[in-house]
């Protein structure tokens, strides 16, 4: 169990997926955002206009701010915080 996963939380079955080509184990019921954090990935994209601006990660956690956009199974602009992980899911971060 990853260090950031809470022991008392009842988790679903384990699923295997990939993040930026890297194999990752997670549990059904977790959101992509949560899984990425558990893997230590919190910078999900880079701002477009301003070079001096920092990287961005998920912010509001409820599907509103659009900062957690990732590509899931080839579909761009999917909100990580609003998507649950599934077996075989392929996640790519740092789309635009």
């Amino acid at each position: 169990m990853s260090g950031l996963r809470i022991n008392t939380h009842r988790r679903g079955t384990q699923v295997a997926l990939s993040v930026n080509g890297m194999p990752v184990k997670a549990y059904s019921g977790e959101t992509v955002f949560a899984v990425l954090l558990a893997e230590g990935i919190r910078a999900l994209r880079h701002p477009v206009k301003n070079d001096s601006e920092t990287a961005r990660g998920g912010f509001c956690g409820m599907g509103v701010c659009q900062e957690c956009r990732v590509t899931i199974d080839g579909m761009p602009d999917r909100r990580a915080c609003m998507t649950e992980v599934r077996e075989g899911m392929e996640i790519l971060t740092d789309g635009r």
Partner: protein
Amino acid sequence: MAPQTADVLIIGAGVIGASIAFHLTRHGIKPLLVEKSDPAAGSSGACDGLVFLQSKKPGLHLKLALESRKRFDRLVDQLGSGIEFRNPGGMCLIESEAELAAMRIFVEEQRTSGLDVELIDGDEARRREPCLSRKVIAATFSAMDSQVNPYALTFSFLRAAESAGARILRGEEVKGIEVVSGKVTGVFASNRRISSPVVVNAAGALAAEVGRLAGLEIPITPRRGQIIVTKAVPPLLRHCLISAQYVAAKFKPELTATGGMGFSLEQTDSGNILIGSTREFVGFDRRTTFDGVRTIASRIVPVIPALKHVPVIRTFGGLRPYTPDGLPILGKVAGLEGFIMAAGHEGDGIALSAITGELIADLIATGRTQFPLDAFRLERFREGAA
């Protein structure tokens, strides 16, 4: 203390009013603009930025547009790169044999009016614009077609005008126009009277309302164009694009029944793609509708499939100032000295803003214009000479 007098008073700080103000300051005249809301709060802030020559009616309309387009190169130097003027060239996309037949004739007429335009087949169109699907069987291409940021252009005109002494009153609506013995002497705005011997009606979709204040019947009616805006994406479109339907239907109305809605697209400097547009007479209703946005979307996705998974983030409806003959109403008005018309550009306001500003400013400053404004006079509608 707000101004009480002006040498020239311009009603409306959209792109037309702003351009006139800018060009007046080149003559050393310092106009006062009276704007009921914010600059570009009307149609100039709810439109796409196409400076498209291929969509203009061959003849006077196209000639006017060509003159305007030529002036944009100079404007970039005068106003700066903030106006986001780009010249990627434009393509008019043909999707049926009927459209192709109409466009062959149209191209000849365009060339006669001085536009350099070439007809290319579908494969060549796709070679130049790879995102196009095979629904495009042919296209016409013009190297001069361009695009600009319409509200940035408006703001830039105004900034330059203000730094040369023009003034703007924001949030002030003109409620009355004072006429004495057939001469305009001033306006009433927000409990204040401003005297001016010259009043320019640059009120766009509201120009008829302004005209009534001066006792004039001006046949400008709002025609809504709904536009879809996508999120910013990496460069996808290499040209600005319109459908032949958009153009051909102007001249062969029977094509509207068969061809579906015309569309236009541009990708802005910020990467957003603007897709238009409906053409609806709905009064002053600026809302977008389910039917409107669904129709635009369903027209464009088959033509540019890469847009399928691009998110739409907003839509808007712009009220284009429509006139019965498709030409703007420009110049002096018989029997009402000092009242100048500069409205009715329908969907061509951005493209024609450069030349309109210059012509009207020249008219006011010198009494002469580079070419005659007879064909654009208000009286043409009364005379049935349209």
